[in-house]
């Protein structure tokens, strides 16, 4: 990591916004470019540390793997699983077309 702070452009922010599935207005892009650059600049202080010989720690537990007994148990009914869905047909979640151009393209 470079210790010189990264700067995010509005183009960078737009790309991350699409990856994050967040629609962003022009004003959002401007504001976030500034805010994220500041935060990224701050967290870049980790670059001061030499961690070449330190293994990553993703989780505080020593546990390596966990098994449980393989026994059947009740799961949610279809009705329960669909109870909070914005759109459904009683069996499936309904969503817009997965392929094709969006209105904003």
């Amino acid at each position, binding site marked *: *990591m470079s210790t010189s702070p990264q700067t*995010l452009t509005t*183009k*960078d*922010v*737009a790309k*991350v*916004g*699409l*990856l*994050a*599935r*967040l*629609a*962003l*207005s*022009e*004003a*959002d892009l401007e504001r*976030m470019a500034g*805010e*994220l650059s*500041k*935060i*990224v600049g*701050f*967290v*870049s*202080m*980790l*670059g001061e*540390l030499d*961690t070449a010989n*330190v*293994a*990553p*720690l*993703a*989780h*505080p*537990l020593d*546990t390596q793997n*966990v098994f*449980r007994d393989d026994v059947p148990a009740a799961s*949610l009914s279809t009705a329960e699983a669909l109870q*909070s*869905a*914005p*759109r459904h047909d009683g069996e499936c*979640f309904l*969503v*817009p*077309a*997965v392929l*094709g*151009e*969006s*209105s*904003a*393209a």
Partner: protein
Amino acid sequence: MQPLEMSAVDLVASLRQGDITAVECATVFLDRIEATNGSINAFLAVDREGALARAADIDARRKAGKPVGPLAGLPVALKDVLCTADMPTTCASKMLAGFRPPYDADVVARLRRADAVFVGKTNMDEFAMGGSNENSAFGPVRNPWDLSRAPGGSSGGSAACVAADMAPVAIGSDTGGSIRQPAGLCGITGLKPTYGRVSRRGLIAFASSLDQIGPMARSAADCALIMETIAGHDPGDSTSLVVDVPRYTDLIDKPLTGVRIGRVPEHFAAGLDPEVAKGVEEAFAVLMAAGATVHDVHLPHAKYGIPTYYLIAPCEASSNLARYDGAHYGHRAEPGKGHRAEPGGQPGGFESPLVEMYCRSRAEGFGPEVKRRIMLGTYALSAGYYDAYYAKALRVRRLIRQDYLDAFQTVDLIGGPVSATPAFKLGEKTDDPLAMYLVDLYTVGTNLAGVGGISFPCGFTKSGLPIGFQLQAPPLAEPLLLQAADRFQRLTDWHRRRPQAMEGGKA
């Protein structure tokens, strides 16, 4: 003594002895909520009908000589990050407005089996992201000690409702200080248990390797009582520890003779409010008078805690919050007309109608801080940046954890401030996200290391705001944390103080 002023331990005893019925008890607290919530905004949902029905059932069972649970009739408030099958669960987000989970969180199920009575769901920072409760989509919580100040966060509603006598006990969650910091700023006691001690199933996920549920109450003894119900292995959470739950209430009443408490000199560097520093030093003196010894210890990587946390937590959040897609549950943007002309069209378009629905639903449903963290996490995990940011933070996390393990070779507990300042004014830090992140300075290390911590009041400023003291302990040393806090509370009365504005039942 009136129920509003009683400890949870005493309330449970009074209920058991029949001095008060569960219905009477629930009514007192529900009336208190009705009278004060307008000024505090601690509750997002109050379940008067459900609570009274539950209380009546407990009274009937007790009268008939049938078995009742260990907390029978005790009113409990739940942070709105915990799934409840019979109450809305919103995480204080427009994304989940009106959402009804299909199941109870494990903690909620355990409390139900213990016959606790849920009075309602408490306000919080949206998706538990924040340190002031100002990120709630349903308005900020006000600190009962000074209504112009923030209660802290993210469990601000849980802290404020206990401080304002709206519930004797509340459940919170702590990812980087979200139990301890608001407990400190509201003058109550809050325990963040060891990672894995309490099941996270049904806790709406923010950062899964850091999140932990814990009790918030007026005293360590009350926290001990609640831990006996909520701790323990849950097959539904593979990270919950397969370790027996001790009888915390039996273990805490012991002298502190010979207990070694570490004091971190770096905690007292510039930035620490002098009144807070004084209160904390006095707390060390009380603990020494109780038989503990105090020793300097160092956490050399402590200053890297905030940047490490603000990479790891947003990375995990960006992944966890990907589930809010407008398809399965939660807010969904209305399709179609006029979108082409609106601002918000990503340059280059949305790839497909489905992706457009995702992007618009999430843009409408999430508030600014949640979006900021999702963006930061997505950036830090994206191709070309993963090693420099996320992987780097994970390596520093190991150094931070090792600091704690090394320190606990020479001391049994680490003491210090919870927050650098007392409660700050509402709006004081909202324009500067980075300034808000720094409020977690003394608390994030506990979560990164996966150890336990407790916060409790150790004094007041001249202007009458609570000062919090924090103790941190090695993994699974909750009995010692609770013992030390309980001993402190037997020698002091800070935890018995009540907000002036709250006295007489009026806000």
